[in-house]
């Protein structure tokens, strides 16, 4: 059952080939047996899941059940879940139990999905290797001495290891696409404002966006249909028509203009990765798509701009974790200053502290214009690059990240090397564009991801391209050794 896609699970549940209780128990058993190898799931909500499954079976029996009724999923531990600990991968929130659901969680509940638990992640979504989690690193199911990517490493590893057919994730600079690439699954970061941020713990508010992770584009279409909503609780949620993402999956891509940015195939790109991505481009060309060389001249500025804007916003977003209202508080503070400084020094990990300090510095009097002001100008230039590119092409394709999964600790003492992991993904966050990653090959027995970048609200077209690609390739069906 664990090898079935969501589309297949929905058919199986509706035709009563198996019940939601059976399915839920099956995945709970897999989590119990296999999760110790990967550390992908940090909270298992077995009792609630089985209760929800019983309810789902009743709805299925009664007929007219909602789209994902009875389908088990996992939520990244960044989404607030009512009554269930939501840690954001941090000691700071190790004891935090929200009294409300994130809108994403609410939407899945409405769609009848069954929540198996919460997935591991880099602390406050800050990291590209899942090594910054308070709950320990997640191991890549393809090679357990390698990282799964981050920050949604738990969600990606869980889907790759078939601990759940799908998981929610978030992407601020590549946190859906990079771990999807490194774990050989399909993941989509929608247009900024497409999915509500209510109840999703903020890292960098102007960049954060939630999206689905699954094994196929077809599944991502089903999941995105459920996640996308206009939410009056999120002022940055955008009132734009929600497409039927599944309806256009089988459209022909003949004549589709694919932009290939020269900047995404330059120095620093692993040879094997480049070969796999170029092969994918040929495969799409064979299906009738047209490749167009394009340039995104300001690409090189995206990492520095991002590492000003994201930490600046984070430095304010994380100020609320002060030991006063909820979450971690240091023992026996001697005064207010001590309460603040020790709570935050003890409650936050090293990478989070580093980014708070960077962000605080960038916003300081005398530095604001040179850093934050400049970064906002760069952001504008990056947006213009894409706007011009999309005047010529329908989608932009390239590698998701420069190389396949790397070994634990290999970039640990060099934050800049780690930040370059997101060199191809960050620009879309700065521009607010949608991007996705699709498995497109293997290098040294480790997956490679193909990135598809679309114009604003063109998720349906991106999913269509990805689905057409998956009709003629098998990469998304591969499973790590010992899994399938």
């Amino acid at each position, binding site marked *: 059952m664990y090898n079935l896609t969501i589309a297949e699970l929905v058919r199986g549940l509706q035709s009563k080939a198996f019940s939601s209780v059976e399915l839920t128990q099956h995945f709970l058993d897999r989590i119990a047996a296999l999760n110790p190898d990967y550390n992908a799931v940090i909270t298992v909500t077995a009792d609630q899941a089985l209760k929800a499954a019983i309810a789902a079976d009743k709805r299925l029996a009664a007929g007219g059940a909602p789209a994902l009724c009875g389908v088990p999923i996992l939520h990244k531990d960044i*989404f*607030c879940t009512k009554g269930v600990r*939501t840690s*954001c991968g941090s000691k700071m*929130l190790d004891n*935090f139990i*929200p*009294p*409300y659901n*994130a809108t994403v969680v609410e939407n899945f509940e409405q769609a009848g999905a069954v929540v198996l638990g919460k997935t591991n992640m880099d602390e406050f979504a800050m990291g590209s290797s899942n090594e910054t989690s308070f709950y320990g690193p997640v191991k890549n199911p393809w090679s357990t001495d390698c990282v799964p990517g981050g920050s949604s490493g738990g969600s990606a590893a869980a889907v790759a290891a078939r601990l759940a057919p799908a998981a929610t994730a978030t992407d601020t600079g590549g946190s859906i696409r990079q771990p999807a690439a490194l774990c050989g699954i399909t993941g989509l970061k929608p247009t900024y404002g497409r999915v509500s*941020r*209510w*109840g*999703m*713990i*903020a890292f*960098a*508010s*102007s960049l954060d966006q939630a999206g689905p992770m699954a094994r196929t584009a077809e599944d991502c279409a089903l999941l995105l249909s459920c996640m996308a909503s206009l939410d*009056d*609780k*999120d*002022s*940055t949620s955008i009132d734009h028509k929600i497409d039927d993402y599944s309806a256009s999956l089988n459209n022909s891509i003949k004549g589709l203009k694919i932009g290939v940015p020269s900047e995404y195939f330059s120095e620093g790109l692993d040879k094997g990765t480049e070969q796999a991505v170029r092969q994918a481009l040929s495969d799409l060309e064979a299906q009738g798509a047209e490749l167009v060389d394009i340039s995104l001249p300001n690409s090189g500025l995206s990492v520095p701009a991002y590492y000003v804007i994201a930490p*600046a*916003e984070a*430095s*304010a977003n*994380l*100020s*609320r*974790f*002060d030991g*006063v*209202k*909820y979450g971690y508080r240091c023992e026996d503070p*001697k*005064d*207010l200053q001590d309460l*603040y400084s020790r709570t935050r020094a003890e409650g936050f990990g090293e990478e989070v502290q580093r980014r708070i300090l960077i962000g*605080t510095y960038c*916003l*300081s*009097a005398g530095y*604001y214009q040179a850093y*934050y002001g400049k970064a906002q100008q760069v952001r504008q230039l990056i947006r213009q690059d894409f706007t011009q590119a999309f005047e010529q092409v329908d989608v932009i394709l390239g590698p998701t990240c420069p190389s396949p999964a790397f070994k634990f600790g290999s970039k640990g003492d060099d934050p800049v090397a780690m930040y370059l992991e997101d060199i191809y993904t960050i620009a879309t966050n700065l521009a607010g564009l949608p991007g996705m990653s699709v498995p497109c090959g293997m290098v040294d027995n480790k997956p490679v991801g193909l990135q598809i970048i679309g114009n604003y609200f063109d998720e349906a077209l991106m999913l269509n391209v990805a689905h057409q690609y998956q009709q003629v390739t098998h990469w998304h069906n591969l499973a790590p050794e010992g899994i399938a």
Partner: protein
Amino acid sequence: MQSISGWDTVIGLEVHVQLATKTKIFSGASTAFGAEPNTQACAIDLAMPGTLPVLNKQAVHYAVMFGLAVDAEIGKESAFERKNYFYPDLPKGYQTTQLEKPIVGRGNVEIQLADGSTKNIRIHHAHLEEDAGKSLHEGDFRSGTSGIDLNRAGTPLIEIVSEPDMTSAEEAVAFAKKLHSIVTSIGICDGEMSQGSMRFDVNISVKPSGSDKLGTRTETKNLNSFKFMEECIAQEVDRQIDLLEDGGSITQETRLYNGETKTARSMRSKEEANDYRYFPCPDLLPVVVTDETIETLRRNLPELPDARQARFVKQYGLSDYDADILGSDAGMSVYFETATEKSGNAKLTANWTMGELAARLNSEAISIANSPVSAEQLGGLIARIADNSISGKMAKEVFEGIWTGEGSADEIIEARGLKQVSDSGALEQMVADVLAANQAMVDDYINTDQAKRKKKLGGFMGQIMKASKGQANPQQVNQILAKKLNELL
């Protein structure tokens, strides 16, 4: 420039006005004052992780109304920023406020001074922001406890920033009172100073008379009464002048004034000031106010105090002085007009509203909005004075009865049998009885010089009023008495 022994004073105000919206600026929690601590703070106000602000449109409209009332430019696209600092009653660790693009731009407020002159005070801008919660301390940090009440957190404020156009405590207080009058008149603030609905930060500096160069200023924060403001300014001006005259210099600092002990102290110097690291709030979109909205609000803007005062003179024939007092206070003016409608006598109503009622409310520290005597009830009482049903003296007794909840004037007059006797037959009989029973007094009256007789009338009046239990109409009694005594001469 008004100078004190060779010095000019320069004063600018920053005024925090709590907007009278039902819910908070970024959440649906109630803004009502006085609830149990932390019962009016929702997940957003508590800055729970993942929560997001949604702007209260009413707060935006109220801010625009203020802008229109002071003839200011309205920011058609304003923006919120985060002002970062740590404090336990600031749940997010930043205050959401406006800096670069405020909703209200330059404006003007005209103030009246005691000598009858007027002066224009310029408004630099006014911006929207959220209020913080309250910290309550008992004992020191280790042995004592600090409590935090977040009911106030997220209450919408406009902060009005003036130009440093005031040169004395009198002008500053006149300006503060005028703002109070404006915001209560247009209904955007309840004006309850004791509940912190309006709070004033006063920037004060002095410079040698006639000098163009401004002196170093201090800022005294959070004054919540006109009286404290006046005292604090006088004290701070003296302190600065004394310091400079002794060859010292002024430290740029933030100060606190304690109205109870009448002392001020330094809170922090400029060097200790926070770097607030303002930056645009990514959770909120720019606030767009359309021309259509502005015009609708302008059309529906309630009467402003200046216009109302002029109308009171014209419509009710009030003196400038009365119109000024009644017209400048929104609560009082509504009360006065409602009561007048019922009483039919504006002058008497004005006297009673500013006199008996205001004094009583003042002594019990009750706002006119919460007056135990409603405007209709006072109007009903005055109607009975106007038609001579009761005397002015009895009216005070009736007023007392209404205050303590005995009912309307008519009910009390009826229940207590206070109705003035104006029936001339009954009064003639009453006078005759008193004269008959007091022959010695009558003889005394007759034997007194004509010039001094008038003084003797009081004695008879007292007897008659006593006999009538105060219900006799005094004017009528006076006439009858004079007539009857004259007949005896």
